[in-house]
């Protein structure tokens, strides 16, 4: 870090040519998916391309849950199978698969919600294991209820040709349908990623607590994701069943298939819109060619290749092929290491408004962790437009208090009330409730959404008050400008230095336009110049009428900012008052520096 302001690196914004180039490549790829088989005219080539479209669509749909939401389902065969069986059974009852497709999608949504709601409590591998277990249960049940499903013998579709029945003699109609489904899933995935829901999903995946602090209803958005993903998967399943003309439980509710569609997404690029397509385009032909050319001799060859490619990608290309592509098209790590440079010296425009009435009331908070009494009868009030400093030695329980007044931790006893804009007193409990009342917080340990750009990070905050992407982006840019982050809007958050991350943390919460701001050690680890600028920034925020509680160790900042200071030690308030009085309070000095220090002071004073 340096004290000298360095101008923004010119290369930071992504050059415009690149998206245009990618769009062109995408267009060519999509056209080729249709044009090649039509031009070649060979049934086998048709089959390969139809299969590519089907798997690309499945993988794209999976990616909405597995990639955007980061919930690694290995049980998507459930939805695929439901779609297939639903479509097939309705055809048996004389209903067109075009309707069956939607019936299957509806069923898949119900099942997705029922399965996911309890499973979202599980993380990482346990979520995956639970989805596998559900998949097995579905497979066994499909085998068991043979009156309905035909059991292990499977079901054949009645050969009624034509568009109504989705069964064709020609090769091109199924290709058209498969391609259409692919376009549909891609369009939905693309739309989601570019709108509020997508930001919320990725934010939840990257840092659930930070997302909740930004007012994201993390469970709800993931349920939306799994519903959409399940519905799309089921629709593709219906079509694929019609195309294959035969289904059986082992092939429909298949673990291998579930793994495969997840695999394509990872190889292509997890969480990117077009990665799954890329993965499927490159890998599906291997299966089909191995089957077509080498036959039984090469049994297992394609699977071996899949497995090995997956291992290599995991080890060497964790961001998949899209990550690889980005490496060549994006400028290098130009942004790194220089963000600490400039905080725009915030202009103090407005006059300080007078301190108003109470806006937050905290009474008798108690919290125990095991035998440890970490918060003992803490109570205070925050008045509108005031800055309240919260200080105390390490381990005094400051962050625990913050967690209790932002909904992240339930107090054992005591209450927190916040005055709503309409003047009524509310008792929020969950982080989303606090966010809705305009209470925003930062985290002591910065919680950036690492895989998102600086702009996207701030937009997550801005979406709290703006549904529209354009508006959110405008608010984010304006906030970034104010926080001195404007030059790095396009840089990934993971590349920022600690100073940059601290500012990003504040920018994200500022974009929420909070009424009450809880700042947890935003000055720790930043240099002198930045501390001074940050102080000015806080004051200018206060002058816009925001009430602030700040946990801070940098005493220079505490002294300059706080109207009042509360000192916490061993979970109790040991002093409060004007900052200059508090730091001279012997109880406080003792808490910080030990009894001997106070004693020596007294001796000095007498001498």
């Amino acid at each position, binding site marked *: 870090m340096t004290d000298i302001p360095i101008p923004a690196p010119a290369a930071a914004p992504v050059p415009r040519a690149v998206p245009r180039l990618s769009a062109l490549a995408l267009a060519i790829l999509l056209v080729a998916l249709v044009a090649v088989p039509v031009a070649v005219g060979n049934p086998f080539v048709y089959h390969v391309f139809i299969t590519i479209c089907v798997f690309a669509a499945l993988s794209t749909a999976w990616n909405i849950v597995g990639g955007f939401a980061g919930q690694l389902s290995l049980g998507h065969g459930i939805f695929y199978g439901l779609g297939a069986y639903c479509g097939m059974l309705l055809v048996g009852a004389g209903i067109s698969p075009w309707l069956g497709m939607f019936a299957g999608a509806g069923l898949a949504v119900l099942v997705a919600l029922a399965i996911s709601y309890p499973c979202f409590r*599980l993380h990482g591998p346990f979520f995956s294991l639970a989805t596998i277990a559900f998949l097995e249960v579905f497979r066994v049940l499909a085998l068991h209820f043979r009156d309905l499903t035909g059991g292990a013998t499977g079901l054949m579709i009645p050969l009624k040709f034509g568009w109504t029945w989705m069964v064709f003699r020609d090769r091109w109609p199924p290709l058209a349908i498969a391609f259409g489904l692919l376009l549909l899933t891609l369009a939905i995935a693309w739309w989601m990623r570019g709108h509020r829901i997508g930001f919320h999903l990725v934010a939840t995946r990257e840092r659930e607590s930070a997302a909740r602090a930004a007012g994201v209803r993390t469970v709800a958005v993931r349920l939306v994701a799994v519903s959409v993903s399940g519905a799309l998967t089921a629709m593709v399943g219906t079509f694929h069943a019609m195309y294959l003309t035969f289904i059986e439980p082992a092939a429909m509710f298949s673990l291998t298939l579930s793994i495969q569609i997840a695999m394509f997404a990872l190889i292509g690029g997890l969480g990117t819109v077009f990665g799954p397509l890329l993965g499927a385009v490159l890998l599906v032909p291997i299966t089909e060619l191995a089957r077509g050319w080498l036959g039984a001799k090469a049994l297992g060859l394609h699977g071996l290749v899949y497995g090995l490619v997956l291992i290599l990608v995991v080890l060497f290309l964790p961001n998949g092929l899209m990550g690889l592509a980005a490496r060549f098209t994006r400028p290098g790590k130009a942004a790194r290491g220089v963000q600490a440079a400039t905080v725009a010296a915030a202009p103090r425009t407005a006059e300080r408004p007078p301190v108003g009435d109470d806006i937050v009331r905290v009474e008798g908070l108690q919290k125990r962790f095991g035998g440890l009494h970490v918060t003992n009868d803490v109570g205070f009030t925050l008045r509108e437009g005031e800055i309240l400093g919260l200080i105390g030695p390490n381990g005094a329980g400051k962050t625990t208090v913050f967690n209790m007044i932002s909904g992240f931790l339930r107090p054992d006893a005591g209450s927190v009330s916040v005055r709503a804009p309409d003047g009524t007193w509310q008792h929020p409990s969950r982080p989303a409730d606090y966010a809705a009342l305009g209470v925003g917080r930062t985290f002591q340990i910065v919680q950036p959404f690492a895989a998102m750009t600086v702009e996207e990070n701030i937009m997550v905050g801005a979406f709290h008050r703006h549904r529209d992407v354009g508006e959110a982006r405008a608010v984010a840019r304006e906030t970034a400008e104010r926080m001195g982050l404007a030059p790095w809007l396009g840089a990934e958050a993971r590349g920022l230095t600690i100073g940059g991350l601290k500012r990003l943390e504040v920018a994200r919460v500022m974009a929420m336009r909070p009424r009450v701001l809880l700042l947890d050690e935003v000055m720790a680890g930043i240099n002198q110049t930045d501390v001074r600028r940050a102080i000015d920034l806080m004051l200018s925020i206060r002058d816009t009428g925001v009430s602030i509680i700040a946990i801070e160790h940098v005493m220079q900042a505490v002294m300059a900012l706080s109207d009042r200071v509360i000192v916490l030690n061993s979970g109790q308030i040991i002093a409060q008052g004007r900052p200059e009085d508090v730091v001279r309070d012997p109880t406080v000095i003792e808490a910080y520096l030990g009894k001997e220090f106070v004693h020596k002071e007294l001796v000095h004073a007498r001498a």
Partner: protein
Amino acid sequence: MDVFLQVLANGVMLGGLFAIVSVGLTLIFGIVKVVNFAHGEFLMVGMYLTYLAVTGLGLHPFAAVILVVPVLFLMGALTQRLLIQPLLAAGDHHIQIFATVGLSTALINLALLVFGADIANTPSSGLRQPVEIGPVRVLLGQVVILGAAIVLVAGLQLFLARTRTGRAIRAVAQNRAAAELMGIDVDRIYALTFGIGAACVGVAAVLIAPLYPTSPNSGTYFVLIAFVVVVLGGLGSIRGAFAGAILIGLIDSVTGFYVGADMREVAVFGVFLAILILRPSGLFGRQLRLSHVSP
């Protein structure tokens, strides 16, 4: 009554089988905090090796231990060193899950390529002989498996409690950073633990191969049950896993007899999902909350 006792006995025998397959998985999970999705394929590889040793070299299945166990130890240690170790620093579950899923896929298909989809039957060498214990009748091989499972569980417990290396392994599991500060080479302990876990499944493979047919997908069935057992036993607890295995064996056997053979898996996975969702620390576990896995 006799029928019920027989059903219980079958359940206990099955439990022994599940226990011996799960012990290694539990150990790896408890210490390295990685869910090894390729665990079943380690078992499958061990079973094929046993098959080759018995049919090719004419060894008694039990003698194949001297071949299978070292090979699997090496396989486990190398998996940790080459595949898991580089990913631990990333701390990203997706990547870890996919790494072992990839390994599992590769191994299944390698077996398909080498041995084909046909079933390989290891000669039973007398292990399929029935033994009568009071009113019930079980296979000799099953008794051996149960006995071996008990010995393995007890042996591992002793090793972890009494030896310097065992203590070091526990230390790493309880507090990785502090273990490093004691002078323990954490990476080495991880590789060793993974190796031991894989070696345990090697022992299981040698005992199971004479009783069950070997195919590229042999591992898949067992590993799903093994996951159930590990979760039921309280993630990482070896004794808990043993108890969980016996319980699952009993559920499997009782459901199979009184409800229907095809409903066994539904019952077992139903229990699994209930535990996973309602009581994620397992029936017998007190340690290792889920959060331990996601640091």
